[in-house]
């Protein structure tokens, strides 16, 4: 089981890092998602891998899994899920307003109305 979980974390992180280094917004977002899956599994594994052990007090058992990483993972999942939704919307709006989904070409300089024009 250790080998399986460890290689899953490794593959997810490697794929995530590769995709983040791509030049368009969609692969970058997918890469972020992979990386956050990787870290979620990693956090979970930090409470040690155990099978058939409850994380909360039960009457018929004396061995427990560590509940803290599970709580941490829950928080991390919620945050990364919300942030993924945000960055998808951002990428979409950016594509619709600028006509480009490149993330490696700097910030587009478009003519804007004078009162809304920003610097540089």
């Amino acid at each position, binding site marked *: 089981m250790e080998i399986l979980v460890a290689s899953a974390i490794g593959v997810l992180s490697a794929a995530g890092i590769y995709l983040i280094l791509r030049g368009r917004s969609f692969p970058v977002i997918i890469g972020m998602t992979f990386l956050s899956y990787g870290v979620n599994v*990693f956090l979970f594994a930090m409470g040690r891998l155990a099978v058939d052990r409850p994380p909360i007090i039960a009457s018929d058992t004396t061995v427990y899994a560590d509940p803290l990483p599970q709580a941490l993972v829950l928080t991390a999942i919620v945050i990364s899920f919300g942030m993924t939704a945000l960055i998808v919307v951002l990428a979409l709006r950016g594509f619709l307003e600028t006509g480009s989904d490149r993330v490696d070409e700097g910030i587009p300089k478009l003519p804007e109305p004078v009162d809304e024009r920003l*610097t540089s």
Partner: protein
Amino acid sequence: MSGWIIAPIIIPAMAAALLLLLRRSPNLQRQVSLAATALLCLASIRLFMLAIEGDVLSYRLGDWPAPFGIVLVLDRLSATMVLLSGILASAVMLHAIRGWDEKGHHFHPLFQFQLMGINGAFLTGDVFNLFVFFEVMLIASYGLLLHGGGPRRLGAGFQYVAINLLGSTLFLFAVGIIYGVTGTLNMADLAGKVSQVAAGDVALLRTGALLLFLVFALKAALVPLHWWLPTAYAAAPAPVAALFAIMTKVGAYAIIRVFTLVFGAEGGAAASIAAPWILPAALATLAIGAIGVLASRVLVDLVCFAVVWSMGSLLVAVSLFDERSLTAALYYTLHSTLIGGALFLLSDLIASRRGRSRDDLEPSPVMANAAVLGGLFFLAAIAMSGLPPLSGFIGKLMILDATRTSGAAGWIWGIVLATSLLVIIGFSRAGTMLFWKSEAVAGTLEPPAPARAASLAPAAILIVGTALLSLGAGPVTRHLEATAQQLVTPQSYVDAVLGRPAQAQRATEVR
């Protein structure tokens, strides 16, 4: 008494919820938001009074005993930072209610959530909660950065969100590793346990510590992780950029807190692990920031690079981690937050008065209130670039003095002084272009600009703040010396949180 500690988190949280309900009446929303910020300021003054009595206080949420529950800790450092954020937020809020808050939705609730995140990060005594408050702060900052919309903000916003998501992921990896090898995330508890990590886990612990440093360095805009800052801050609405002046300090605060308390001199295998990395990176930050200041053709870009440069000076002092250099670093933190905010507000005031030229560094017809604005800019430039008599000079003097005995003193003195010269040249050129060369340009500005002198007040308040910081340098420095003293002897912090001597604690509950 210790119940007060949670006030700087509760006040903005409640205010933000209330402000969401009031979204249909913008005037009332402004008043409530302003009142909440003022209340926050009062609460932080109260906390500051509590902290300067010298004891470290802790507040247990839900009264769960540490290290199992979540604690908030008030010591001199966190009280000072919370007070600083309250002062900056008040000035920024006064600026924002002059029109910026109407350029998009939900400015005020996001502003309050941002304050909640910042104050939470300063007060928390738990690494995972530090992560959570970083996220609260960042999520609000994403909304604030995009306030007003436009393609430029969307482009900058994507990069900003992406780099911070990556930072959060690394933070989680670091938290996971540290929990995995020590079995705790409470900072005071960690302080005792990192020195007892099994020999086989030492490499993991060091990896976790350095990953944590990487994340904080990203927030603190340390070269080579600085590149997001000029893009994001220049695209952000001016009051938001001014408030962001304290966000880089949250990164610096986290470095100071974690790498004195947990991975400080007594951190076992990971003792003083960040110090060798900070110094070269901070010197590079100084150089890159100063070159950016020289190369900028727009005032707001210049201010962004000046902020990067000031983070370099600050972290040069932090890198030594002794009492004198931490005092200098903290003084410089106070100074650079106030002056960074003031410069962002000034660049907005200048841009709004120059019609089509905005804040491009080229001559245009004379702007409204040119004399007063020029005077304020002159003072702010003096303070930022570190010329006497304002706080930048005192801060720099303290940094140079504190690093005199360090092995790398030659490098530090050389680079700090040389880059200061570059920044002085950059600011003089900007001021000459904006104010003096404009005298020679005939014609009028179009469209005609607003000329309310009262709108200069918030920037003036922040500049007066730096002036007070210079006038009161004696008492301020004595307070900061006591703060640094508290930082280099973390035992009082540990005792305040765990409530018993660390020796007894160590025997129990090691995984």
